[in-house]
């Protein structure tokens, strides 16, 4: 039998987080393996709008991360040697009624409080300058942030993966983790379909599959996933400038039966318009499309953007997005096994993936993190719920 491969760090999950972590570690000379059950970028990282979000970050830390990322994103195409198609083309949240205005005004205030000033409530005319295809009659105001924008999430993820590889990382694609060999509270080996690999540290970046993966080491975390649906049109001339997020999504009114529906859209560099979102509770990793969801999205989009009526929709899909019980990120070590690090639950991860990768690197080298992420330790859940009892063998 051939010698088992051995790594300092093994990252599980080939989405944007996993690939960014692999890149940041490999660049510093860490011997890294990246294990992915499908292809690189085959789940949520390839299935989203590619927004670089600032306005609706869930806490001051992720907002600061996103702000700091702006400089990084501008240089990232060059660094990764792939066009991530980043455009700081502005983000708009159309507002149609007083309820939305109230919620979003306080969101803007919150941003200002957290020290982010380049965001404001604008009138319909100004909103229309940002998105000329927007029907200004339909809105009473909008949230506008010039520093927001869009990028190509697939190119970003593949760019991190390729750059990691160039820096010596090994990528195990189409390799599901079957189990772990654990001794003395430490993972020693990861069992893959074709082989076992030795590792000193395991980083879970498994998105919606996080809970299932961590169950394998005897720990249960309250991490759930929801199914977000989206669709894309065949390419058209530029008609949508930046990122558009429906104001209704910030209110209760976006809920239709068990589904959250709103009009979010962006036009990719290659001309296709991506439209989302209808979100339902995730179940059995089902990624079929629902019968109605995207029809409701289409109706909502057309109410703002009637000029899009002739778009040819050529593909629908859905992605599973993970979130924790308290909707805050999960970032930190488990206590048993001690060498497993969990990363998940960052909202709108695409825009801050590089920062997440960099933070993992800082933790790895014990440099002290650029951001105070102590509140995001997974142990906050373990203290409350008891860890699964795992028999020693």
């Amino acid at each position, binding site marked *: 039998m051939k010698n088992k491969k051995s790594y300092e760090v093994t990252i599980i999950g080939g989405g944007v987080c996993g690939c960014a972590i692999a890149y940041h570690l490999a660049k510093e000379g860490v011997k890294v393996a990246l294990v992915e059950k499908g*292809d*690189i*970028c*085959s789940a949520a990282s*390839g299935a989203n709008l590619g927004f670089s979000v600032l306005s609706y970050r869930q806490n001051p830390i992720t907002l600061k991360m996103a702000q700091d990322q702006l400089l990084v994103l501008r240089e990232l195409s060059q660094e990764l040697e792939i066009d991530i198609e980043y455009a700081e083309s502005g983000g708009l949240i159309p507002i149609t009624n007083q309820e939305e205005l109230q919620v979003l005004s306080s969101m803007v205030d919150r941003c200002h409080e957290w020290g982010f000033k380049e965001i404001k409530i604008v009138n319909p005319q100004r909103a229309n300058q940002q998105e000329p295809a927007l029907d200004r009659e339909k809105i009473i105001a909008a949230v506008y942030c010039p520093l927001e924008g869009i990028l190509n999430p*697939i190119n970003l993820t*593949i760019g991190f993966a*390729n750059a990691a*590889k160039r820096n010596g990382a090994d*990528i195990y*694609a*189409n390799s599901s983790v079957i189990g772990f060999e654990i001794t003395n509270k430490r993972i020693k080996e990861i069992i893959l379909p074709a082989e076992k690999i030795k590792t000193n540290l395991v980083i879970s970046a498994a998105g919606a599959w996080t809970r299932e993966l961590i169950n394998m080491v005897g720990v249960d975390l309250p991490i759930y996933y929801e199914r977000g649906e989206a669709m894309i*049109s*065949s*390419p058209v001339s530029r008609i949508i400038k930046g990122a558009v997020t429906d104001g209704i999504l910030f209110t209760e009114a976006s809920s239709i039966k068990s589904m959250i529906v709103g009009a979010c859209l962006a036009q990719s560099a*290659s001309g*296709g318009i991506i*439209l989302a979102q209808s979100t339902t509770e995730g179940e059995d990793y089902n990624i079929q*499309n629902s*019968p*109605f969801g*995207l*029809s409701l999205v*289409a*109706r909502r*989009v*057309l109410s703002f953007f009637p000029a*899009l*009526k*002739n*778009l*040819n*929709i*050529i*593909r*629908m*899909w859905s992605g599973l997005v993970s979130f924790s019980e308290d909707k805050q990120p999960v970032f930190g070590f488990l206590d048993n096994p001690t060498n497993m690090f969990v990363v998940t639950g960052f909202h709108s991860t695409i825009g801050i993936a590089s920062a997440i990768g960099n933070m993992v690197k800082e933790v790895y080298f014990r440099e002290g993190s650029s951001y105070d992420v102590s509140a995001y330790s997974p142990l906050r859940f373990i203290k409350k719920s008891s860890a699964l009892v795992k028999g020693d063998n």
Partner: protein
Amino acid sequence: MPKDNEKNSIKKIICRCEEITEEEIREAIREGYTTIKSIKRRTRAGMGLCQGRTCSTLIRDIIAEMTGDKKEDILPDSVRPPLYPVELSVLGKKVNKE
């Protein structure tokens, strides 16, 4: 954009919709993207209006040639709705539950 005289001494197109050339496909395979699905993500081949209906068998042939994989092991890309392009306005109409 190619000069006029280059137009027809051409690169061989594989994905007609997105105008992806054979050389671009081969480059992606050399980078390690050896499935139809991952080549699509890497190059955009198969992302256009026909959703790979024309080019996926051509890409399978190139993968098989370069990697030595058997064609039966090179799986098609996953299929998603709609199987025909549908206009946004039609999609957005009130759905008739016949």
